[in-house]
């Protein structure tokens, strides 16, 4: 499996619980955004050759690509996301912290809405418009749906 799947800390060393814990300590917008941008910087880059039309996630102001690899032996879906915008990379990293390296059924069962509201993203970052986080989540769920 390619290194951008195996080296990603999201869903292994950085989990959703850890993201929630960390962001809980940050009170103001500056600290939150610095944290989000730092998360994005830990996201392994996708090789340009994989930034293809079929991996392109629509509904984003910035460009976002999503690649996935299913390992049947482990029953786990490995995810990789890249974007040319820092904040969107960070948001994508938060999504992967919750969904990466899970079984397709676990992905479908994961309560994203509660995760997002705990992150307070709804207040500080609008996930619906422009940044495409919603489109990214739907794409991951639909890939998972094909595997169950």
């Amino acid at each position, binding site marked *: 499996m390619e290194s951008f799947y195996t080296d990603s800390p999201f869903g292994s060393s950085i989990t959703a619980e850890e993201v929630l814990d960390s962001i809980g300590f940050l009170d103001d*917008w*500056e600290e939150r*955004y610095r944290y989000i941008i730092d998360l994005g910087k830990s996201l392994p880059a996708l090789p340009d050759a994989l930034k293809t039309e079929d991996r392109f996630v629509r509904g984003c*102001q*910035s460009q976002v690509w999503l690649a996935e690899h299913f390992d049947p032996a482990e029953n786990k879906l490995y995810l990789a996301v890249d974007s*040319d*915008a*820092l*904040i969107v990379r960070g948001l994508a990293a938060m999504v992967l912290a919750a969904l990466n390296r899970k079984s397709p059924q676990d992905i479908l069962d994961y309560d994203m809405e509660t995760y997002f509201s705990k992150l307070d993203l709804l207040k500080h*970052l609008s996930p619906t418009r422009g940044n495409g986080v919603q489109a990214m989540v739907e794409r991951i769920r639909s890939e998972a749906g094909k595997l169950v």
Partner: protein
Amino acid sequence: MSLDIAALRGQFPILSQSVRGKPLVYLDNGATTQKPEAVIQAIDAYYRECNSNVHRGAHYLSDEATARFENARQSVADFINASREEIIWTRGTTESINLVASCYGASLKAGDEVVISTLEHHSNIVPWQMACERSGAILKVIPLQADGSLDLAAYRALLNERTRIVAVTQVSNALGTVNPVTEMIRDAKAVGAVTLLDGAQAVSHFGVDVRALDCDFYAFSGHKLFGPTGIGVLYGRKALLEAMPPWLGGGEMIETVSFERSTWNRLPYKFEAGTPNIAGAVGLGAAIDWLQAQDRTALAAHEAALLRDATTRAEAFAGMRLIGTAPGKVAVMSFLLDGAHPHDVGQLLDQQGVAVRTGHHCTMPLMDCLGIPGTVRASFSIYNDSSDIERLFTALEKVKSFL
């Protein structure tokens, strides 16, 4: 007459609010302008005092509504030096251009040519592409020079006896470039082409006289001119409007209807099927009356001073690249920060209470031509002042600390 910008700003209720705990700095005027109290009150008064359908004439309220609606049309006509029968209400610039592309465009034939420019907003590209697809006409595009102005020599070279329509923007929404439209129209007329100007980004910045410009069509939106959304204007030269087929069919646009055939109402009603946006028209009329009561020369000088101030600061700001530096621009500053995606810059400015637009600004071909995915655009209006520019640059310093 000396300007009191603080007093003028005070007439715009929305500008006194705080967003995210910081006083709002509104620099997205190219997308839409805010509305003065006079406009809000005119719309409110219309619904409170005389809401009724227009031109039906059966009762007092209808007469009053019709009077306010038609007075607004007269305000528009005076504003651009046209006659009232040449002023057609639309939903906005986009609909105005679509009307011309459909109705005047119906006379296009295979091999005819339509000329637009690289600076156009999608709303002055797509309707012409559609008209060309229907007719077999060919779309030609005026190229751009490095500073964001049009290549006039190349424009002249595009013109020939097959050129039927020249449709260009008066002011670029993405860059602020002011095109030399008087000259361009003269050249178009010399080959017998009909001309349309997209005035959406022009009307709030300087006076427009369609007779002096000698254009055949002029389109603009109310909401970029301190008026409400959902109302816009198409000016058309009377002889052309009379020769064109109607736009939408329905009530109001007819003179007589039978199941065998219908005949069309006189101008401008021929192009206004259905109950119009009466409150919108009244609001736009109020916006124009309000603006005309200001010292527009002084306001234009104020905007020019804001742009000079912003440009001077931008040139001293490390890592900032201005996109579009044509001389005589309106007060629009499009830029990029080195290594930063415009969307990131916009979001980090928003967190600091500064509203700008980011992205391709509905000018994807222009962005492709410039080789960039988009820009950050700060667009100024009459109620902005130097403290807004100060806040923008302070906020940009902070943005840099994130990148």
